[in-house]
């Protein structure tokens, strides 16, 4: 059984913020939803409530950056780039302000439907010059995200998990280092965020079926270590498959495609994720199945990649975790 950690961001942020005078906490009326409500109550001098007004918050954060502060801006990921995109560009990205954008509820981890689901954030952020992108995939990465983000000399966007988060790793994020979870030589699986847990479920079953899997987990999406990735691609006999909580355009699937094309790697690539579609509201487990982002979808993708059937069924995959809708670790409806 994986250990489940309750609200790992809460304590990690407090610890980091209290250790650094230049760190400030900004919030846009989603304070408990971003697990900074205790911080607000305990450290009001470091907390700024900016209301439900994200455009202003972004340029304001840019101004704080100009004053030598390193603001951690909290909201749902979606509200950090869709409405305030222009402010993000002009006030934060261009001048390379040290603004830390903490985006909660990435992709389909929210039941809030299209308006709440950041499904193209990585694509958008990847195309912004000067931007760094980090993504958390377990509790240990959430616990180390503040330090990792704050080490960046410029702006950084982070996909942060909240609530009850599984612990999959025992070492903190090291910016730029991918995690080697399996080192087989048949095919290469690349995952990030919540899809890593799914890929771990799939790779256990695949190993049982005799497939030698190489599995990499990405917590640093930009900048990207193309050279190390090329070595991994070269060390498998077959192709590459990506699984992402994001549209397949512009995310880690595209990142792999670019890496392979740029270097003339003639191997097959299967990209799993949302395929040119918006999602809708529903539980995470339902949405992962419906849009093909789960372990079973990955197994099927690998069957396609290898041109072989393994006869792996849902029962062969270790049980998926189902999040309780009304779990007390979740402060709001969303």
């Amino acid at each position, binding site marked *: 059984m994986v250990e489940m950690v309750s609200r790992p961001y809460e304590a990690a942020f407090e610890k980091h913020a209290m250790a650094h005078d230049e760190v400030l906490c900004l919030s846009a009326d989603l304070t408990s939803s971003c697990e900074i409500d205790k911080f607000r109550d305990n450290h009001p001098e470091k907390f700024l409530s900016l209301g439900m007004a994200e455009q202003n918050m972004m340029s304001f954060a840019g101004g704080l950056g100009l004053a030598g502060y390193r603001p951690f801006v909290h909201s749902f990921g979606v509200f950090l780039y869709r409405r305030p995109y222009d402010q993000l560009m002009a006030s934060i990205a261009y001048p390379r302000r040290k603004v830390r954008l903490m985006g909660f509820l990435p992709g389909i981890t929210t039941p809030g439907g299209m308006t709440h689901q950041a499904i193209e954030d990585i694509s958008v952020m990847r195309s912004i010059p000067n931007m760094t992108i980090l993504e958390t995939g377990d509790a240990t990465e959430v616990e180390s995200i503040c330090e990792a983000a704050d080490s960046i000399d410029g702006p950084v966007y982070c996909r942060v998990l909240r609530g009850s988060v599984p612990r999959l790793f025992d070492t903190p994020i090291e910016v730029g280092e991918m995690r080697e979870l399996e080192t087989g030589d048949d095919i290469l699986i690349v995952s990030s965020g919540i899809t890593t847990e799914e890929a771990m479920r799939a790779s256990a079953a695949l190993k049982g079926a005799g497939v030698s899997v190489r599995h990499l987990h990405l917590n640093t999406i930009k900048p990207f270590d193309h050279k190390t990735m090329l070595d991994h691609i070269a060390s498998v006999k077959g192709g590459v498959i990506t699984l992402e909580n994001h549209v397949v355009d512009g995310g880690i699937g595209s990142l792999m495609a670019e890496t392979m094309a740029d270097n003339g790697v003639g191997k097959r690539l299967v990209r799993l994720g949302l395929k040119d579609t918006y999602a809708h509201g529903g539980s995470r487990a339902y949405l992962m199945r419906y849009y093909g982002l789960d372990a079973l979808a990955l197994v099927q993708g690998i069957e396609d990649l290898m041109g072989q059937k393994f006869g792996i069924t849902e029962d062969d995959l270790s049980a998926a975790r189902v999040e309780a809708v*009304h779990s007390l670790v979740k402060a709001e409806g969303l």
Partner: protein
Amino acid sequence: MEHALQNEKTTEDVALGIRRRVFEHSIRNNGGYMSQACSAAEQLAWLYNEELNLGAPTLPMIPKPFEGVPHKDNPDYHTGAGYNGPVAPDLDRLFIAPAHYALVAYATLIETGRMAPEGLEMFNKDGSSVEMIGAEHSPGMEVHNGTLGIGLSTAAGLAYGRKLRGETGNVWVYMSDGEVQEGQTWEAIAACAHHKIDNVKAIMDVNRQQCDGAMDSVMEVGDIGRKMEEFGAKVVWVDAHNIDEMREAVKTPHPGQPLIILANSSPFEGMPTLEERFPRLHYVRFKSEEERARFNTEIAASLGIDPIDYAH
């Protein structure tokens, strides 16, 4: 004026029915957007039961499951606007701008005979179109508004287009006060005033709360009525729980200006027990089974019904 389905119940009864349904739903599901039923019940009841000029619903009383998002491969896509009746030049349109009020809006559809009670059982269920944050395919919705502050602008554009076409129907927007923190709300009012868009009518739930709690503690917004007047709207304040005041307010002439009715509401009206949680009422989740049981008994009594027999 044709008022299909209206006036079978008094507006007071519709409002009470809305609170009862949202209460029952929240007790059964261990939480929900209950306080929005308290503040908004009379406003939505009045709109649907009296003020809106709508035709009979064109979509099935029991909502269909989710049928996909707009896409070239989904030619049969349609929104949930059919629960508000057909689109016609003389009929009104309504947007629920704060899409988290969906639970209250669905309860209103049921109370006014526009959706079957089974619809509420599908709320937030996987594969259902009756979504927690009203999507444009959800019953009674025509546009996506989960990203707050965009409703009034869309309404202004629709209203302008309808005016150009010589249509006589109004475009109504149900708004929340949190929306005034978004700059776009002010841009929308200015656009309405500048282009003399007076077929837009809005009613805003001024409950003075938002996710984090009291609006004054999150970001003060000051005298929003005066500010809106300065931006070019015709503004009328009403008591959100006094239907006569809404009936009067809507008669206010507003040539060349949008009308905004500011409804001064209580976020625990009709469910006084909720005051214990004030001002953190945005989403009520019971802290324990004991609290859930007590809220069940006390609020049921306030609403004049038996406690809900829920599964533990």
